[in-house]
């Protein structure tokens, strides 16, 4: 048998194709690299300890920070999670347990639609059902808007993860005399828990970066507050306010805010993955 020294056309074609795929990946990563580069290079200059411990100062004064906005974002995402995690997980359980039913298909369709609703529309909705009755902007309204956005994400993630749990585990639990609910909550949900935790944290990271639903729900607040019934600041709205202002000082603050936000989101994502991997390892999965 003779071995040809020139590569066959299919080998060249294959190499070209793999090369094209690699190039596409690089192109996709370029925007991320630029975003991180600009946010870090611009943000680091204005970042200081004061930024985390001080509230904003009036125009013209130097210094000041976003302590109020950082705490505000934590409160808003906390409120959203308190609302969306139980509803989302229980809906996900329903969707996976009654996956064949007509109502489940309707719920699944509704969740996907809700997931696609523009966030500004969700802000308007929260304005109508929370802000108007209470007659003023509040952290509650902002948390509600973010919670509404989180519910479909968590519900669909939970459903998909529960469907991955082998049916043999359910049968094992039922054969030991477990009721259906008991089997679900003592065996099936715990088996999917690492994935569900990751899904929840990723959903949190996503809504933490939302601005539109907060513009006329939680509004903004120049002062530090932890009151749920008062307008509250958030990093995103604060960055928006500073970025559209004409002042150089505020622009720098906006970059620093953007850097803090990106860092929070990245830390959340990584923490979720590490936590899930650790839980999975403890269980020997």
């Amino acid at each position: 048998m003779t071995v040809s020294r020139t590569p066959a056309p299919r080998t060249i074609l294959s190499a070209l194709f793999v090369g094209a795929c690699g190039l596409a990946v690089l192109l996709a990563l370029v925007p991320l690299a630029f975003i991180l580069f600009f946010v870090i290079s611009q943000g680091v200059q204005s970042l200081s300890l004061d930024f985390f411990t001080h509230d904003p100062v009036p125009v013209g004064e130097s210094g000041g920070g976003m302590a109020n906005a950082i705490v505000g974002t934590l409160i808003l995402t906390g409120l959203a999670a308190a609302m969306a995690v139980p509803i989302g997980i229980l809906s996900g359980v329903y969707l996976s347990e009654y996956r064949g039913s007509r109502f489940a298909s309707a719920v699944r369709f509704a969740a996907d639609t809700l997931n696609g609703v523009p966030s500004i529309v969700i802000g308007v909705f929260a304005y109508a059902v929370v802000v108007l009755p209470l007659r003023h902007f509040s952290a509650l309204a902002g948390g509600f808007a973010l919670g509404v956005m989180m519910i479909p994400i968590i519900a669909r993630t939970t459903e998909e993860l529960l469907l991955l749990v082998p049916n043999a585990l359910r049968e094992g639990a039922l054969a030991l005399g477990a009721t259906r609910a008991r089997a679900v909550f003592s065996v099936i949900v715990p088996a999917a828990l690492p994935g569900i935790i990751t899904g929840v944290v990723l959903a949190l990271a996503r809504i933490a970066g939302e601005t539109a639903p907060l513009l006329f729900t939680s509004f903004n607040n120049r002062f530090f507050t932890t009151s749920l019934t008062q307008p509250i600041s958030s990093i995103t709205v604060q960055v928006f306010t500073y970025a559209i202002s004409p002042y150089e000082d505020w622009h720098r603050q906006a970059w620093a805010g953007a850097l803090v936000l990106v860092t929070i989101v990245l830390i959340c994502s990584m923490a979720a993955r590490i936590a899930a991997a650790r839980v999975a390892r403890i269980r020997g999965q």
Partner: protein
Amino acid sequence: MSLESVDNKDVETMNPPVRLPRPVVRAARTPVPEPVTGSRLKIDVEHLSFFYGEKRALEDISIKIQPNVVTAFIGPSGCGKSTFLRTLNRMNDIIAGARVAGRVCIDGDDIYRPGVDVVAVRRKVGMVFQKSNPFPKSVFENVAYGLRINSMTSSKSELAGRVEESLKQAALWDEVKDRLHESALAMSGGQQQRLCIARALAVKPDVLLMDEPASALDPIATQRIEELIYQLKTNYTIVIVTHNMQQAARVSDYTAFFWLGRLIEYERTDKMFTNPTEKLTEDYLTGRFG
């Protein structure tokens, strides 16, 4: 390659000293108890038919299963033996479109009578599956699961005692006593299957249904399971589905042969394997089909 570097996990020699079960012909060693009748029967099935939607999977099956013996169900793939086994603890209830006609009496009570507590039925009739299915929890929690959900123990020490007792019954205690709180999924296939048996025994069922419990195991692990079945029959009524005719001959006292959803022959194992009544049984046992 040195001998130590061989991964022995699969043959379960991780925890020396290892006592391999003696290969013995059990059927010849113990006398089969005298058959009982009426309400002393453990399982009495009358005219049972089973449907998956329109399709009839089991046709008019009647069988009387004796207490404290091992009954084997044999037959070619798709003959309905597993489906029939699963009607005995109502595991088929969870299949959409499944329907049952006829009666299945356990200790004289029809488990398909309206108003029967299915949870109570399954507690009384335990089950071990073909593929071991330990929960992704620790060894201890796996065995304790049935005890916890049924609130069967009143104190921590009682719970621990029952877990230990069950693991000993399943001949697993010596291998796992030092790692009770490690993941059950880290054990070998044979250990996982014995853990599933321990888990089923913990709730103290009367009947143990085993659906090809050794089909995924190597010969040594299989031998251990068979030895275990032999020991357990003094306290439990065991029904085992098996593909392996030699296994049926080794472990069972009675054998039922299924074919195309019907019960063709039900006899004492020694009689069936030496002198079957039906031509079909003989053809199957001699390997002419199936």
